[in-house]
């Protein structure tokens, strides 16, 4: 499939050194943020403009070469893992900010522009781009669209899907689609919604128009220390039920608190079973009113509350949270980061159950997560050098995700399915839904050459796992053999 003719055709689309086929030179591209899984691509294309992207796709279509699109490569689920026989289409050179429209409060940018640089470019106008995944200094906006990225502030400001107004997409068949735009709706189906979070399976995003919001004038951060993890979990729901929508509401358990303290000395109480970090923002009056109400809710549940009024105090509190992952990395040689989401009301019970499962299997689990939207990030600590521990960690991870699905949640809140969660998708979706997903992909990519094998498991894979859900005793494709 990946013939010399394909290589010749691709070289014709790109200046000489923008197509990399040398085995040593493609090595840096063999993995994304999910580093446990590596695969060298057949070739790497680094186009400099959209015309080159179109030409590359056209050459791939002609020669039947599968394409994996990659932004900054910070994804955590292996969505940008290359294919041995495929082209890795890297969009990191497409990084110009095309337009900042202050009347519309929008920015139109190329897909390789980093998330943070958008906010930096518009800060002098008193505006910002709200979604802020923790990798925002490096991750690209095109990747954010592919994964529907979240971040600390999406409880109040929404996910990527809520903040992207329009995109330009190149399909594998060679069409350019302009989806969404500066109007609040567009006639026909909401293809923009279908594209956001589609993990590079439906097309290549070559331009993104995002919504810019006015920077809030005031903000405060409250730190609440609890003696009991379940009480802390329940306090999260109580804040929401009180009618407060914090800008951020994060939780850390004792293991994570102490790891963070050892690492950055954020001033967290080491004796607490759990802490909540709650950020409220808005006008000065709104913030004052919210602080008083949040404090009441927390103190009524026995929390010790401290208020960070000044910018440096707030930054210090957030620093511990932001450093939690690297800090956990010092507790054990390796960690495995999960991404399930559960209804907030289940937080207390699920945290307790994770603790029990952790004890049963003998691997410690640190919990650092977006409590406000129920998005858990249990970090399973293990040593890949110790025989069997990786398998154990993966098994525990699978159990945790099953638990998330059982209580009405999902296997991935913001990291995506990629290659990592293909098996757990079989648990969350039935065969009929999976078949519908595959038909939706075919509508955009009939050849099936955009990021093949990612995001949606095949029915055969699920049936081999024995995890296939069957609705009402009806098996789709009864003519197919089942294992």
């Amino acid at each position, binding site marked *: 499939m990946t013939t010399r003719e394909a290589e010749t055709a691709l070289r014709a689309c790109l200046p000489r050194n923008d197509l990399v086929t040398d085995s040593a030179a493609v090595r840096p591209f063999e993995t994304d943020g999910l580093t446990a899984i590596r695969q060298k691509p057949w070739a790497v294309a680094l186009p400099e403009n959209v015309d080159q992207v179109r030409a590359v796709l056209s050459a791939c279509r002609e020669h039947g070469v599968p394409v994996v699109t990659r932004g900054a490569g910070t994804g955590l689920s292996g969505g940008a893992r290359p294919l041995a026989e495929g082209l890795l289409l890297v969009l990191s050179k497409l990084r110009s900010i095309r337009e900042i429209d202050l*009347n*519309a*409060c929008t920015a139109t940018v190329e897909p390789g522009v980093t998330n943070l640089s958008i906010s930096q470019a518009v800060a002098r106008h008193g505006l910002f781009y709200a979604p802020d995944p923790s990798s925002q200094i490096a991750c690209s906006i095109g990747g954010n669209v592919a*994964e529907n990225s979240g971040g600390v502030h999406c409880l109040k400001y929404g*996910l990527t*899907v*809520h903040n992207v107004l329009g995109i330009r997409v190149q399909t594998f068949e060679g*069409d*350019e*689609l302009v989806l969404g*735009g*500066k*109007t*609040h*709706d*567009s*006639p*026909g*189906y*909401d*293809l923009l*919604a*279908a594209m*956001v*979070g*589609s993990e590079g399976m*439906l097309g290549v995003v070559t331009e993104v128009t995002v919504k810019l919001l*006015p*920077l809030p*004038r005031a903000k405060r951060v409250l730190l609440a220390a609890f003696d009991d993890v379940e009480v802390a979990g329940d306090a999260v729901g*109580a804040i*929401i*039920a009180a*009618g407060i*929508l914090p800008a951020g509401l994060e939780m850390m358990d004792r293991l994570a608190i102490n790891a963070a303290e050892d690492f950055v000395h954020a001033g967290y109480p080491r004796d607490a079973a759990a802490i909540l970090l709650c950020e409220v923002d808005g*006008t000065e*009056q*709104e913030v004052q009113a*919210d602080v008083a109400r949040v404090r009441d809710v927390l103190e009524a549940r026995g929390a010790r509350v401290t208020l960070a009024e000044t910018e440096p105090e707030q930054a210090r509190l957030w620093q511990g949270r932001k450093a939690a992952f690297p800090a956990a990395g010092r507790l054990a040689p390796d960690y495995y980061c999960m991404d399930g*989401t559960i*209804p907030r*009301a289940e937080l207390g019970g699920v945290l307790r159950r994770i603790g029990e499962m952790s004890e049963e299997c003998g691997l410690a689990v640190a919990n650092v997560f*977006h409590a406000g939207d129920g*998005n858990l990030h249990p970090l399973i600590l293990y040593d890949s050098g110790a025989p069997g521990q990786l398998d154990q960690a993966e098994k525990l991870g699978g159990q945790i995700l099953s638990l998330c699905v059982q209580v*009405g*949640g*999902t296997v991935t*809140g913001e*990291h995506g*399915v990629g290659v990592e969660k293909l098996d757990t998708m079989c648990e*969350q*979706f039935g065969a*009929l*839904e999976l078949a*519908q*997903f595959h038909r*939706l992909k075919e*509508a*955009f990519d009939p050849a099936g050459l955009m990021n093949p094998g990612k995001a949606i498991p095949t029915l055969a894979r699920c049936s081999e796992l024995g995890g296939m859900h069957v609705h*009402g005793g009806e098996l789709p494709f009864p003519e197919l053999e089942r294992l």
Partner: protein
Amino acid sequence: MAANCRSQNSSACKGQGAFVARAEGAADIASGEGRDDAEAVVATVAECAASGRTLAITGHRSKRFLGEAQAEETLSVADYTGIMAHRPNELVLTARAGTPLACIERLLRAHRQMLPFDPPQFGGNGTFGGAIATGLAGPGRPWRGGVRDSVLGVEIVNGKGERLRFGGSVIKNVAGYDVSRLVTGSFGTLGVILSASVRLLPMPEAEQTLVRECDAARAGRWLRAWSRWPLPITATCFEGGLLRVRVSGAQTAIADAAMELGMPMRDPNAAFWQRVRDHEHPWFHGYAPLTRIAIPRGTPFERNDALIEWGGTQAWLREADVAPPPEGHVRSYRPTARTAVSNPALARYMQRIKEAFDPKAILNPGLLQLDPA
């Protein structure tokens, strides 16, 4: 509204009191209220899928002026009612398609919560499923999001008669393609919506309508400038030489916003926004044509005879054959016109998506025109 809810749909709202009481303490989905005859809906669609007979999906028919499907059979989901789950701590509600919006509003008001997209209830009617299927949102759209922004999950019956569930009831969920949002606003042409889960918002502590005289050009200039200010604006409406601005939040924040906006005058008529939303405001009365114009953010629209909402991005005119603004689009509400997608490439992909969900094109035929121009 409450009267409507009682008189028209007694079976749907009856027992809601009991449900509310249970929902407060209940940790689990409270089903059994209203009517759950989903299997009958599935069976109807499956029969039509087998025979190839076309199917028009209806609820209260409150939005029939947006077009009605011409089909061999009619499937009404108006009797498929009931709020399946409402956990106030979760800010999430799950309800069956036929549930009257008025019932949902009443339940939520008791918990000081609201549907962020504030869907219109034309003639006081409208079902939850109809709101999702048409994707129409109320005056707060630019600030609180549209229907698609709040939808978390749906259960549908596709054109093959398959009962499918997508998304869920959690805020963050990136497992699989976002079919829930794709189905939102698709006018029932991809599947019959059985039920949906949406996120809710807490009701603001207080709300006030500020008002001042101006012409459309000035109103537009102010609104464009205000969009860059961090102010608690949640609706705007220019009409008849008056600009109204709704501000929501803490009492003190509202008072400050009024000063900063330079709008000390209040409009005490709290029902104003609902009347605009439902086209009950006198401006919408009469038989003259009615056209909706979607205006790109930041683009001036300076017609003094228009009713202009959404911070200047949605306008209404009592005229037919209105030309769309650059990068905007128009839709006639009176006389009825179907939604048409004129871009050939877009229409082609949408047609393929239609085939992926409804291969025999039995669902709401003609409601969405996807013929490449």
